[in-house]
């Protein structure tokens, strides 16, 4: 029998710490095996008995069951240093500062990880980091026809939603109704294309790849062209108008007409992938009725006989439609019983922290694609809805789990191990890299928050993965690291930055090297590393210019290596 905290007994441990805890009788052989692997693991004693602690235990139980099923050795618990860097990058989008590292290392409290997580979730950087992450999900790296200042305003709007901890279904509702100031950019990128809008809405919010069914019935799924055109019908009347805003700025307004249909020529079923569409010559294009995915056709009032769509001038926003199809789609998408929304959301949020979704890629739920841990996915989905789509709560549960806090070492070579038997390895985003560079060179968090990646940096470091999230090192990235001025410039001793302070410090070289490592890599150097860096920095001759040059080089080495490049 395992002791489960969801029994709500006051004296039961809040956490099932089955990773290393030898209390559970029936699992002794496995745990004995684990004990030998986990000598460095830290045991967390019982935490607070809030009901919220239940989900993290379920996560661990299910993840552990996955390992047992596949006979995978469970990972060790992450070290404090690895956990600290990981959780800072994941929650606030930058590595911890020297002071933050020291504060955590000097804290000997039993709940220090949990307390740190709470602190970071309340940090304003969490809101902006969430906004940056979702901005990329919603718009991609290079959306067409969108100005940087419009995007900044959109990110701010997103950050406000996360700051208010707006429920996820409400955020989606606001994005898709697009009535709030600065919320319109999601639609604006589609420039009124119903195809692009439908494809993206289905993919991003409902985790469904419907676009294949545009030209033929979906080859790997149940969706047909009827489904595709049925959903497109909800967005076909939507249009985006760019109007003059305050201060000569342009802003987007999302409107909808009262008329307009998706039309289709030929038979709406039975075209298989690879076949030419079945079209009858001279056939009349027939309007297709809007239809909810996997559900009923839209019940729609008839237009008045004499209705005439008002003629719009250039840049004129249409009046409210007599009947809004888009509103009906949004109602359906954000309804508590929508079969796709919550599932897609928890899968995406899980992947944001765990590397790989239960369904991978995160936006490809389909009938021939079995999730890796189906029970856990279902539990998360139900719990998320039961908790009123509380994103922060879900994140708190995930990052408090032992699964999230697994070690960064193990036999797997996968960047994102399928069953989470080692922490995922992901490249820092260009925003995280730049902010972290500011933090580690001692310029401070404010400077990090104000930093904006240059055009070069976006070009060389902005898209480090192939289409499936696999990191690929590139020549250009490394030429930029070597010969561009961004990295080198920040490493150069200058105006009280870290390299400058280290040069001026009267501390011994060993202490200085320790401070460098703690600042840049959030850890103490090994003795071998310490010796190597001391001799590198403390070389002959004792010329201040030489010393400054060496300091710059040593800093450059620390920020150019694999250890800094990735969140692991």
């Amino acid at each position, binding site marked *: 029998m395992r002791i489960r905290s969801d029994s709500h007994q006051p004296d039961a441990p809040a956490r099932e710490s089955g990773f290393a805890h030898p209390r559970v009788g029936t699992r002794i052989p496995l745990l004995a095996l684990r004990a030998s692997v986990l000598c460095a693991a830290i045991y967390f004693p019982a935490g607070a008995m809030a009901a919220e602690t239940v989900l993290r235990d379920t996560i661990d139980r299910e993840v552990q069951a996955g390992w047992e099923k596949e006979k995978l050795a469970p990972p060790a618990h992450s070290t404090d240093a690895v956990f600290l860097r990981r959780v800072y990058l994941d929650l606030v989008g930058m590595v911890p500062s020297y002071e933050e590292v020291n504060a955590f290392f000097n804290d000997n409290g039993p709940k220090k990880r949990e307390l740190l997580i709470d602190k970071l979730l309340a940090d304003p950087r969490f809101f902006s980091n969430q906004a940056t992450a979702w901005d990329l999900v919603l718009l991609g790296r290079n959306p067409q026809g969108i100005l940087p200042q419009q995007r900044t305003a959109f990110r701010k709007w997103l950050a406000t939603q996360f700051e208010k901890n707006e429920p996820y279904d409400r955020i989606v509702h606001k994005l898709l109704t697009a009535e709030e100031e600065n919320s319109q950019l999601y639609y604006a990128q589609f420039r009124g294309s119903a195809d692009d809008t439908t494809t993206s809405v289905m993919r991003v919010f409902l985790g469904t790849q419907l676009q294949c069914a545009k030209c033929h019935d979906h080859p790997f799924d149940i969706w047909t062209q009827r489904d595709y055109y049925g959903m497109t019908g909800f967005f076909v009347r939507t249009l985006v108008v760019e109007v003059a805003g305050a201060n000569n700025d342009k802003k987007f307004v999302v409107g909808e007409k009262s008329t307009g249909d998706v039309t289709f020529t030929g038979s709406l079923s039975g075209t298989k992938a690879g076949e030419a569409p079945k079209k009858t010559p001279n056939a009349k294009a027939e309007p297709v009725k809007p239809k909810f995915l996997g559900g009923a056709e839209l019940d729609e009032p008839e237009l008045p006989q004499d209705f005439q769509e008002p003629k719009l001038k250039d840049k004129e926003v249409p009046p409210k439609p007599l009947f809004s199809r888009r509103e009906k789609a949004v109602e359906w998408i954000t309804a508590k019983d929508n079969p796709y929304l919550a599932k897609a959301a928890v899968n995406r949020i899980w992947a944001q922290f765990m590397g790989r979704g239960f369904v991978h890629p995160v936006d490809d739920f389909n009938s021939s694609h079995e999730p890796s841990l189906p029970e856990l996915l279902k539990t998360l989905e139900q719990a998320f809805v039961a908790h009123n789509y509380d994103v922060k709560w879900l994140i708190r549960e995930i990052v408090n789990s032992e699964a999230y806090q697994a070690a960064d070492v193990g036999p797997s070579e996968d*960047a994102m191990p399928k069953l989470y038997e*080692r922490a995922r390895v992901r490249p820092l985003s260009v925003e995280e890299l730049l902010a972290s560079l500011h933090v580690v060179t001692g310029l401070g968090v404010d400077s990090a928050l104000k930093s904006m990646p240059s055009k070069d940096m976006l070009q060389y470091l902005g898209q480090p993965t192939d289409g*499936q999230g696999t990191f690929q*090192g590139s020549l250009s990235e490394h*030429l930029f690291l070597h010969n561009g001025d961004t990295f080198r410039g920040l490493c150069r001793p200058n105006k009280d930055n870290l390299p400058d302070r280290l040069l001026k410090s009267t501390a011994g070289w060993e202490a200085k090297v320790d401070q460098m490592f703690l600042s840049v890599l959030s850890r103490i150097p090994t003795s071998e590393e310490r010796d190597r860096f001391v001799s590198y920095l403390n070389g002959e001759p004792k010329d201040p210019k030489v010393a400054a040059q060496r300091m710059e080089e040593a800093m450059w080495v620390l920020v150019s290596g*694999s250890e800094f490049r990735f969140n692991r």
Partner: protein
Amino acid sequence: MDTGLQPGTCNVQQHLSRRSLLKGTVLTAGGMAVANWGALTHSQTIAAEAKRTGKRCIMLYMEGGASQSDTFDMKLGRPTAGPFRSIKTNVNGIEVCEYLPKIAKHADKLAIIRSMKTKSVDHGIGGYHMHTCYPSNEKFPHAEIGAMIAKYCDNPESDLPSFIKMGVLACSAGSGYLGPQYEPFSVATDGTLPSFANPNVPQDVQDRRGELLKFMEEQHAKEHRARPFASHREAELRTIRLMRARKAFDVADEWNKARERYGNTQFGRGCFTAVKLVEAGVPFVEIGQDGWDSHNDNFPVHKANMSVLDPAWASMLHDLQDRGLLQDTLVVWTSEFGRTPAINGQGGRDHFGRAWTVVLAGGGIKGGQTYGASNQDGFEVEDKPVDEGAYFATIYKTMGVDHRAVHYLGARPIWATPEGSKPIPELIG
């Protein structure tokens, strides 16, 4: 040549096989993860594997759109003819423009496709379509032909980049879904390196900090086996190798002797550098010649451009043959589209995709032929239309690349060429 890649090959597998090669290096070099740091030689494993391919491609891209009617598909005596005369070539029955006298002597190497029929007839979309084989309005990160060839024909032994662009601006799709490993490495039209490829610290500093970085990477690699770390280290190695091998781009001394033949132009020097680069093992080089968009004064513009093109292209074919490289090096002459047969009020010709010409040579192409035909005034294709798919499929076939190789972007499959694209057997020798 068969690359051994079957339809349905996915990039993950390719990465795995590439990785296993690298692992081979690591093991034979003594078990250290980056033991081969900065070395210019590689293990037998890689050398053996590299023999699988060996195909190269040089693409001469006429930015703006070259006129078929004034180059390779002249309509002498017809209302659409310009003032230029035609000349005989070294192949009976094939004539080309009088301003291509040197290339005329290589007609036995050329397959002139006079029946290109393409859909994207403006610069942005045409440049995209003729580089990726797909229309840009699919809003999909398609991969350029250079990235595809880099992926399948790359020689892992080479210190040089696998996809080099010289001054081409017509398309910026880059490696798209193939990922940053196959991004183009862009240099100037004359083949000289961008400043950021040159070390900004002296060699002794470069070496010294490189040693320290190597030490740190070795420490890290002991426990961290995940592929992204290896990919990062590999790219660092390639970068250092490139910086050391960058002399391959420095052709200044040889150029002094070659420039009379190639024409003393940036484009000529680019073509000369390209020959040196494919000789050094680079699988794909694209060289842009700009200024072909002759809506006004088509004839002076074309005459001037051909005077630059002709000696460079002809000398390139000569040198490739001379060095025994031509049979494995495909040379493509292309544009985003052709130009209208009709001459407009400004003495210009406009964008035209309905019936235009591209030229292939070397690399297993059957030379000395024209393929397809436009009608008598050049307004339509009369025989054997060639669309983007067939054109790309033919190139891929000669390069030993499966023209239906499939990759995935997220869940969506994408093929090297669209459904139904087939190589043209008559063009392949």
